[in-house]
C-alpha cells in the first residue's frame, strides 16, 4: 500500500488538551484526531473518567504525518508530557487515502 507515515498517539490529562492542540497546530501538520472521554490508569493514578470531580479524565490525540513532521510534533509535545505526565507513542503505518 502507499506512503509510509508515522502515527503518533498521545494520552494525557484532559486539562492539557487545548495546550497540546496549540503546539501541534504550530508544527503545521495537516490534521489530527481527538477523543475526549478517555479513562485509564497510569503513574498519576486512576482516571475513571467521571464527570463530577475535575481532573479525572484523559484525552487522546492521534496525528498521522511523515517522519520529518513526526520529529517536530514529538519535540513540541515532549516538554508538556514530561512536565504533566501521560504517554506518547509512535508507530508505523501507511496512508491509503488522504486528500
Amino acid at each position, binding site marked *: 500500500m502507499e506512503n509510509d507515515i508515522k502515527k503518533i498517539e498521545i494520552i494525557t*490529562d484532559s*486539562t*492539557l488538551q487545548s495546550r497540546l492542540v496549540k503546539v501541534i497546530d504550530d508544527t503545521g501538520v495537516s490534521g489530527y484526531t481527538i477523543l475526549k*472521554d478517555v479513562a485509564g490508569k497510569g503513574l*498519576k*493514578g*486512576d482516571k*475513571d*473518567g*467521571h*464527570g*463530577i*470531580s*475535575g*481532573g*479525572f*479524565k484523559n484525552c487522546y490525540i492521534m496525528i498521522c504525518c511523515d517522519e520529518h513532521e513526526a520529529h517536530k510534533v514529538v519535540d513540541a509535545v515532549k*516538554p*508538556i508530557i*514530561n*512536565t*504533566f*505526565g501521560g504517554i506518547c507513542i509512535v508507530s508505523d503505518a501507511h496512508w491509503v487515502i488522504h486528500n
Partner: protein
Amino acid sequence: MDLSHLLHNFLAPPVPFFFVGLLAILAKSDLEIPSQISKFISLYLLMAIGFKGGVELHHSGISSQVIIILFVSIIMALVVPVYSFYILRRKLDVANAAALAASFGSVSAVTFITASNILQTSGISYGGEMVAAMALMESPSIIIGVIMYRKLAAKKEETIGEHEHMGMKELFREAFLNGSIVVLLGSLLIGLLSNEKGMEIMQPFTGGIFKGMLSFFLLDMGVVAGKRISAIRQAGWFLVGFGILMPLINAGIGIGLSCLMGLDQGNSFMFTVLLASASYIAVPAAMRIAVPDANPGIYVPVALAITFPFNIIAGLPLYYWVLQCIHA
C-alpha cells in the same frame, strides 16, 4: 425546628440518595451515572442556585452588610489555604500540601446547595449575597495555593521547562474563568437583572425540579465518593483526621465571624458552610496543571470522600444546631 426534626430531614430526599449511591458502590454494584449527565446536572444546579441568588439579591438590594460579607468571604478564601498549608506540611510535601490547602480554601457548591435545602425545609431564608460569596470564594485559594507551591518548592520548578510554566495570566484565567464559575456568576447576574416575570418563568426549572435534580446529583456523588474511598486507606490517618477536623475548625471560625458581622441565622449557616466545605471540582482541575507534581489521588479523595460526606451527615446538622442555640 429541634434536632430530631433536623435529623428527620436526612431521611427525606435529597440527602438519602447520597447513601444509596455510596452503599451501591461499597456493595460492588455496577451503578454508574453517565459522565455527561453529571456535567449537565452540575451545570444545572449552578445555574439554578445562581439565578435564585441573583433574584434574592435583586429583592434585598446591595446593602453595606452585603459588601462586608463579600469582603470577609474573599479574605477567608485567601487566609484558609495559608494556615491549612502549614498544618498539612507536617506530613505532606509542598505540592500536595498546596493543592489540598487550595481545596479547603475554596468551596463545594453541592454542600452549599444541600445546606440551602435544609434551611428551606426549616422555613429559614438566606440572602442572595451568600451565593455571590460562594462564587467569589471559588478561585482565590487556587492562586494562593499556586503561589505557595512556587515560592516554597523552588527546586521542583526548575524541572518544569520554561514554556510549560503556567504564566500568571493563564493561571488567573484558569482560576476565575472555569465553566462552573462562569455559569454561576452569569446566572447570578441574570437573576439580579430579571424582573418579576423572569423569575416566575424560570420557577418550574430552577425551583420545581430542583430537589429532584439535586437528589440525582447526590446519588452520583455517592457513587464517586464510594469509588474514591479506597484511596483514603492509602492516604492514611493524618489525612482522614484533617478531612474531618478542618471543616470543624473552619466552621468554628465561620460561626465566630458570623456573630461579629451580625448575620442572621440563615446567612450565618450558609457562611459557615462555605468555610467548612472543600472544593473537589474547580480546584483539582486547576491543580492538575498548576501543581503538576501533586497527586490528585490524594487531594481529591480527602475533599470528596471524607469532608463532603462528613459535612452532609454530621457537619450540617451540627453547624445548624450550634447556630440555632446562638440565635435562640
